[in-house]
């Protein structure tokens, strides 16, 4: 079933796009990631122009996180106070990110920077999560179970502490603000929702309990991706509403099943699975940097 996309200016197989949306939706509901790190490369691989792929994937992330966030909120698994602070930082970070993006684009090195950042970030986070999950599952035995502090030492040293009842934390709001700021920059640069950065950072840096992490991260992604969609509609004009709609139809349904799966699976297994997904994507991106690309020449419209 072929459908013509008015903004992308080409026709695509509608069923394939819906299936892609559904797959990403399942991941989004299960792990609390937006799924942009999968949607965007897959759409580009399919032949959609990169700017349209990035902008429309952002729109899809909003929808996928709504249904995920709602089902987590219903189960009481979100810290909105913490989320609001991260969002404020994130929106400021995305403005800085947009400026960096434009500078890199003008120099023609945006692809390499995006690729390298993906590899470094995903590789680091993936290994960290994999190690943790394996320890928790009892596959690796740690000789001396060292007592880990509840949260990072730098986070603990920040002034101005607030109480976050939902997370059971007493930390400075500067820490989630800085986290949001960093995530915002990366969101704009990498064209992703930022979930796969937020989730590990909230667990490992802020020390939030796992049960509120996914809902909180989805609520943050919801607001940031809606904001980014508006920015794209106003500046790049690359949001293809038909493409986003197709992705969403699959995505929102997938997110529901994903959230359901998340409640039925052991959290450590879940973390293990996410670590594997992240490492596969990182490996694929590393190969893409080192291997001779299919296309030596690329066309940019002036």
């Amino acid at each position, binding site marked *: 079933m072929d459908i*013509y996309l008015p903004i992308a200016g080409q026709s695509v197989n509608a069923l394939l796009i819906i299936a892609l949306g559904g797959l990403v939706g399942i991941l989004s509901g299960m792990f609390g990631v937006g799924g942009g790190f999968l949607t965007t490369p897959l759409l580009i691989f399919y032949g959609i122009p990169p700017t349209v792929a990035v902008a429309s994937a952002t729109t899809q992330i909003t929808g996928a996180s709504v249904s995920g966030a709602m089902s987590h909120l219903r189960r009481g698994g979100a810290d909105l106070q913490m989320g609001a602070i991260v969002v404020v930082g994130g929106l400021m970070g995305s403005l800085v990110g947009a400026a960096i993006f434009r500078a890199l684009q003008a120099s023609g090195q945006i692809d*390499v920077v995006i690729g390298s950042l993906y590899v470094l970030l995903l590789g680091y986070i993936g290994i960290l999560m994999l190690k943790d999950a394996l320890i928790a599952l009892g596959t690796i035995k740690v000789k001396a179970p060292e007592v880990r502090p509840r949260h990072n030492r730098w986070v603990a040293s920040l002034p101005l502490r607030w109480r976050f009842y939902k997370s059971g934390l007493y930390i400075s709001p500067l820490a989630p603000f800085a986290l949001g700021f960093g995530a915002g920059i990366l969101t704009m640069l990498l064209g992703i929702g930022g979930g796969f950065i937020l989730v590990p950072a909230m667990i490992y840096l802020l020390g939030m309990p796992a049960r509120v992490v996914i809902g909180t991260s989805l609520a943050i992604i919801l607001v940031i991706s809606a904001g980014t969609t508006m920015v794209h509609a106003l500046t790049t004009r690359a949001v293809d509403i038909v493409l986003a709609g197709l992705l*969403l139809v699959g995505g929102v349904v997938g997110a529901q099943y994903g959230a359901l799966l998340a409640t039925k699976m052991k959290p450590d297994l879940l973390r293990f699975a996410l670590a594997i997904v992240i490492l596969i994507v990182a490996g694929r991106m590393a190969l893409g940097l080192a291997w001779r690309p299919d296309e030596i020449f690329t066309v940019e419209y002036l």
Partner: protein
Amino acid sequence: MKRLRAAVLAVVALGLMAQAKPVLVPDVSARRVEIRYSFTGAQLLLFGAILYPRGVVPEKTPDIAVVLRGPVQPILIREKEKIAGIWMNADSSRFRSAPAFYAVASSKPIADLLDERTAAIYEVGLQNLQLSPGTGALPEKARRFEAGLIDLRKRGGVYYENPRGVEISEGVLYRARISIPSQVPVGTYTAETFLIQDGRVTSVATRDIEIGKSGFERWVSLVARRHEFLYGLAAVFMSLFLGWAAAMVFRRRF
């Protein structure tokens, strides 16, 4: 008497035409191609007749080349190179007028029809496209980038040559089929027909074809350009609504 006069006139008219060259009467199957939701590309039939002076078909049938060309765009081409183990963009080159679509069909391979100079003058054949490389570019570099662009677009299906794509029947009627893929930009396309005799172009005829979006597709791209803010809001609300609707539907089910 009247009949005689008509016959005389006809002879005179033919005599006048004898000094003229053959004339092409071209047409296309569609003057306007509409892009709708199910648009997967279009097939154009470019056909016509060759009118010879005095209506006499020469013994040696002339050849026909048909060129369909899309709107030209200024572009920047970047070339990747392996630097320190990583493939990154190194060199780049600008071209001021690269057609978004270029297809040529001919009754024989272009090389057999025209010498290089003539083919270059009429821009017949992919090797003869005038892409206008940016000023200051070295000729070898411009050629390398040109070859890269043509190869890229050839594989994308927007540049192609069909050396046996024109059929000529009875030496008078010709027709060529050219398919346009769905990813071409909208705009005015020109179909040029060349009548070639003994390595010379003896007649040229041009027809314009409009490719445009229509209906919902046209409306969406207009709104996206003119009412960006509303369009963005619509996209956000659509995603919020679909997400909410799915959550509602599934809440009942589980």
